[in-house]
Every structure is written in structure tokens, then in C-alpha cells.
């Protein structure tokens, strides 16, 4: 860290303070001490100009005498010593320059010697003012630094967390789809081609969309349809998919791949575990200041009901609270064989 007073803008301001101080000094000597104009100017200029430079040097004792790293006794002793040294230096240099360069008259000489005690006192007061200012500056800027670092760290942690929660293609889904394609090449080549194209489109969208921070609800829905089309080939007529949404919702921006895991769960715990037909419903509407998205599916109550929260759902919940800095944006309802997940996207953000 460098002396803040040496920054040009600060130095101009600093000089200005000293000029003011010097003028007050002159006025005081003229009126209260009854000195002549030239004597008053000489006294003021020599003492004040020297302290202007000396004060800059006080940065070093402050910089190297840290409160944290020294015992309080040592700290106080060193500062008392440096207060005495700096004040003596100031007065000694001033006297030297005044007497040997300007050779003042006896009136000024005797005035200076009469006020020597006052000058030492002022020297010590100046020392205290300077060091306090420097310490405050150091404290404030390191405090700011710390705040900055902390907030950087927080952003970093948040990003890392978001990254770890990012949606990834389920390998089980991928390999089973490839197996279906492999099978279709033998029994229905046209369908195999169609499924290859859909799977590619789906994967391409998943790869590119999940890089974005937000995308339109309509994009998300488009991808869901692709996904469900592929699953339909695998599971035949074991499920149906129903969509209901207000047209005004489709343009709303939402975090990508936030619904995908819900559909996957519906397939995994609803369709997959059931021997009966399952209906998956997607509903999007505006409610109060939120976009409310509901995904629901019926499931076989005899099969092991989803105990606790599934990882996929917990990940979305965490993602939402990280993105919108608000909790409870995902609510699960599970009753009478219907599993329902409600997601609330705050409107007017993003």
C-alpha cells in the first residue's frame, strides 16, 4: 500500500489544507502576536512547508507499526518515540533554515524561542492527526478489500454451486434410447431414422441451452416434447402427456433445464414403476407475481412411493434459490397417488 496523499488528486487537496493552515498561521501572528508582516510570512512559510513534507514521511512509521503485530506497550512506546523524533526534526530543521538562510531579526528570534513549547505541542498534535488519519485509511481500505474479496468469493461459490447443479443427460436414458434405435434399424428403419434425429436434436438442445442463464419457457417446452417423444418410442402407450398453458406465458424467461428433471422423475417413478397407463400433465400460468409451472403425474401407490425428496428435485430447488435468492420456489404435493411439483418463477426479474 502506498501513501494515499501521494495520489495527485489527494496531494492537491492536501496542499490546499496546508495553504489554509499557513494563512491562518499568518493572520494569527499578525493579530495576536503583533508580528510584522514579513516576519509572520517567514515564520508561517518555513514551519508549514517543512511539515507538509515531513507529514508525508509519517506514513512509514504507521505502515510498519501495525497494531495487530505489536504488543500495546511496544506500540505506544514506538509511537511516543517517533512523535518526539518527528517533532524535534521539524523544529530543528525549521530553525536551521530560518536562522542560517533567512537570518531573521532579533524580534522574530526571541518570539520563536518564547513559543518553542507551543511549537513542540503543535508538532505532537500534528503527529497524532497524521498517524490517526493514516491508520484510519489503512483500516478502511483493508476493510473494503476484505468486503470485496468476500463478495468475490461468494459469487465464485455460487457459480460453482450452480455449475454442479446443472442438468446432465441421464446415461440410462441415453443408452436405452440407443438400444431402441439399434432395435428399430432391424424392424422399422424409417422410425429408427426419426428417433436418431430426435435424439440428436434433444442432445444438441440440452448441450447448448444449459449453457445459457435463462431461456424462454417455449424453448424449454420444445425440448420437453422432444424428450417425451423419445420416451414414447421406448415405452409405447404406457403414458400420455397433456399440456396446458396461457399463451402469455411462453415468452417468460426461465432457467434452462429446470423442468426436464421433473419430467424425468415422472417417467422414472410414474411410468417406469407402473404397470398401468400414466398421465403426465404440464400446466403453466401466471399467478400473483409469479409464473407457476406445475408438473403432475399419477403413480401406482403400491409401488415404492418416492420417499423423501429425489436428488433431481432437490437440485432444482437449490438452483432456484441460488438464482432468485428466494426460498420455497418449489413445492411438492404428494397425495392420493398423484405426485405434483409446483415451481414459482418470480416475474419482473431476469
Amino acid at each position, binding site marked *: 500500500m502506498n501513501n494515499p496523499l501521494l495520489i495527485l488528486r489527494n496531494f492537491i487537496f492536501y496542499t490546499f489544507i496546508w495553504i489554509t493552515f499557513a494563512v491562518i498561521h499568518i493572520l494569527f501572528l499578525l493579530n495576536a502576536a503583533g508580528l510584522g508582516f514579513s516576519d509572520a510570512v517567514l515564520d508561517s512559510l518555513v514551519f508549514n512547508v517543512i511539515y507538509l513534507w515531513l507529514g508525508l514521511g509519517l506514513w512509514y512509521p504507521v505502515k510498519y507499526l501495525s497494531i495487530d503485530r505489536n504488543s500495546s506497550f511496544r506500540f505506544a512506546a514506538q509511537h511516543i518515540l517517533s512523535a518526539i523524533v518527528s517533532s524535534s526534526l521539524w523544529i530543528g530543521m525549521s530553525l536551521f533554515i530560518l536562522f542560517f538562510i533567512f537570518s531573521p531579526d532579533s524580534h522574530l528570534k526571541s518570539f520563536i524561542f518564547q513559543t518553542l513549547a507551543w511549537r513542540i505541542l503543535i508538532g505532537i498534535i500534528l503527529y497524532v492527526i497524521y498517524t490517526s488519519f493514516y491508520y484510519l485509511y489503512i483500516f478502511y481500505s483493508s476493510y473494503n478489500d476484505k468486503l470485496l474479496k468476500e463478495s468475490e468469493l461468494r459469487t465464485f461459490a455460487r457459480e460453482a454451486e450452480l455449475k454442479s447443479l446443472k442438468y446432465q443427460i441421464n446415461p440410462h436414458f441415453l443408452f436405452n434410447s440407443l438400444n431402441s434405435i*439399434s*432395435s428399430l434399424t*432391424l424392424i422399422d428403419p424409417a422410425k429408427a431414422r426419426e428417433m436418431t434425429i430426435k435424439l440428436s436434436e434433444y442432445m444438441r438442445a440440452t448441450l447448448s441451452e444449459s449453457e445459457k442463464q435463462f431461456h424462454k419457457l417455449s424453448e424449454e417446452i420444445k425440448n420437453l416434447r422432444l424428450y417425451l417423444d423419445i420416451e414414447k418410442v*421406448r415405452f409405447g402407450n404406457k403414458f400420455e402427456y397433456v399440456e396446458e398453458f396461457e399463451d402469455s406465458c411462453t415468452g417468460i424467461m426461465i432457467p434452462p433445464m429446470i423442468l426436464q428433471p421433473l419430467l424425468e422423475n415422472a417417467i422414472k417413478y410414474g411410468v417406469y414403476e407402473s404397470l398401468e397407463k400414466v398421465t403426465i400433465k404440464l400446466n403453466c400460468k401466471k399467478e400473483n407475481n409469479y409464473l407457476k409451472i406445475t408438473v403432475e403425474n399419477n403413480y401406482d401407490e403400491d409401488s415404492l*412411493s418416492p420417499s423423501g425428496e429425489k436428488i433431481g428435485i432437490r437440485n432444482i430447488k437449490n438452483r432456484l434459490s441460488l438464482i432468485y435468492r428466494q426460498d420455497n420456489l418449489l413445492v411438492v404435493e404428494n397425495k392420493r397417488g398423484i405426485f405434483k411439483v409446483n415451481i414459482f418463477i418470480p416475474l419482473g426479474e431476469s
Partner: protein
Amino acid sequence: MSKISAIIIDDEPLAREIIKAYLKSIPQVEVTSECSNGFEGIKAINEFKPDLIFLDVQMPKISGFEMLELLDELPVVIFTTAYDQYALKAFETNAADYLLKPFSEERLKEAISKASLFLSDKKKNSETISKVFEQMDKQQEFLERVVVKNGPKIHIIPSDKILYIEAQDDYVMLYTTEGRFLKQKTMKFFEDHLNPEEFIRIHRSYLVRISEIKQIELFEKDSYRLQVSGGKFLPVSKSGYSRLKEIFQ
């Protein structure tokens, strides 16, 4: 060489189709039945007594492994799976053959020729499969459910319905809210795979759900017993008593 009878068990129709299509060029294997879940699988195996089954590991309701556990006599098994790290590890360490979906016709032929070795050596077959079970058990964390067979009926018991477990020779008796069921597994298995925060071993032969314990009392000199919600008394061993003391203190 006599014909090999086979059953395909997989919940995805297309996955069954490709096996059937490949098998067309292997005339010595004859598919006698196709099943889309484990229940159908058990029925078909008991009915047709196939030499060989193609078994998908992940299926609705009960998994391929759970289905095998319910069989009295094991056919030769070629496992099929899309992606299951645990199962793969179990297969690999025990040299059981498996097919990773999607697979080629050549790979299927290879699996069948390996399987024919097991066909003539039933003992080796069941040994290999039980080793796979053992490994799967080891890798498994907490049990979510237990599948049992009661006569012709199959029950899926979620672990949170188990009240207490009693050892009976090579079997254990599971006492649940819906009656009692015999399962061929060891006490040690349940002790290892039920959440220790929910279950406690009170005796060599008893594992009890902690929340079911109503009271613990001195029974005879130096021996204790406890009462479960249903009213029944179960014996408590010395080490069982010190475990109980630890959690109820």
C-alpha cells in the same frame, strides 16, 4: 446339440425385439416366452422351466435381481443393462456374463456360447449368481424395500413397514404392519442394510424398529425383555441391553 429354451425379460418392447431378431440366426436357441416385468418373469420361468433367461436389470416394481432371489431354481442368466455401475461391478468381479445395451449380434453369440458352459454345470451357475447377489448386497446402502414370495403371491415390503425381524435358521421372519413374511437372507444382511438410526439389534435373533419399542423391563435375574407395540415380548441379550441403554439415555 439339443435346443436351448430361453425367456426374454425386459420392460421395453424394442429391447426384446432386438434380442429376438438376433436369435433368428442362432437356431439352437428357442424363445419360449417374453415378459415385460419380474412378476410375469417368475410365472413364465416356473411354467416353462427355461434353460436360459435374458434378464434386464432395471424393471418396474421388482428389479431383475429381486426377481432372481424369488426363484427356487436358477436358470442360466444373461444380464442386460443400459447403465448400472453397481451391477457392472458385480458382474465383472464374478465373471458373470452381461450385455451392455446396445449390443451387437456377435456379442450376443459370444454370451450364449459362454452361457452354454453353465448349462452343463448347474452348480457353477448358481454359485456365480449368488456371488453376484453378495456383491450387490455389499454395495447397497440402506434397503428401501424387501421383495418376498408367499406361496404364489409376491409382496413388496417397503422397509418402513418392517416392525421387527426374527432369525429362523437360514431365513428371517419379517414382522410388518401387514403380517409376517419369510425371507431367505441372513440377520447380518438386515443389520447392515437397515438404517441403524431406525433399527437396533437387541438379541442374536432379533432386530427391532426403535420407534416400536414400548417398554424394557427386567425379566429374570440379570436378563431383560422388551415389549413392542403389538404387545409381544422379545428377549434382550446383554449386549443388546447395553446398546439400548446407549440410545435411550
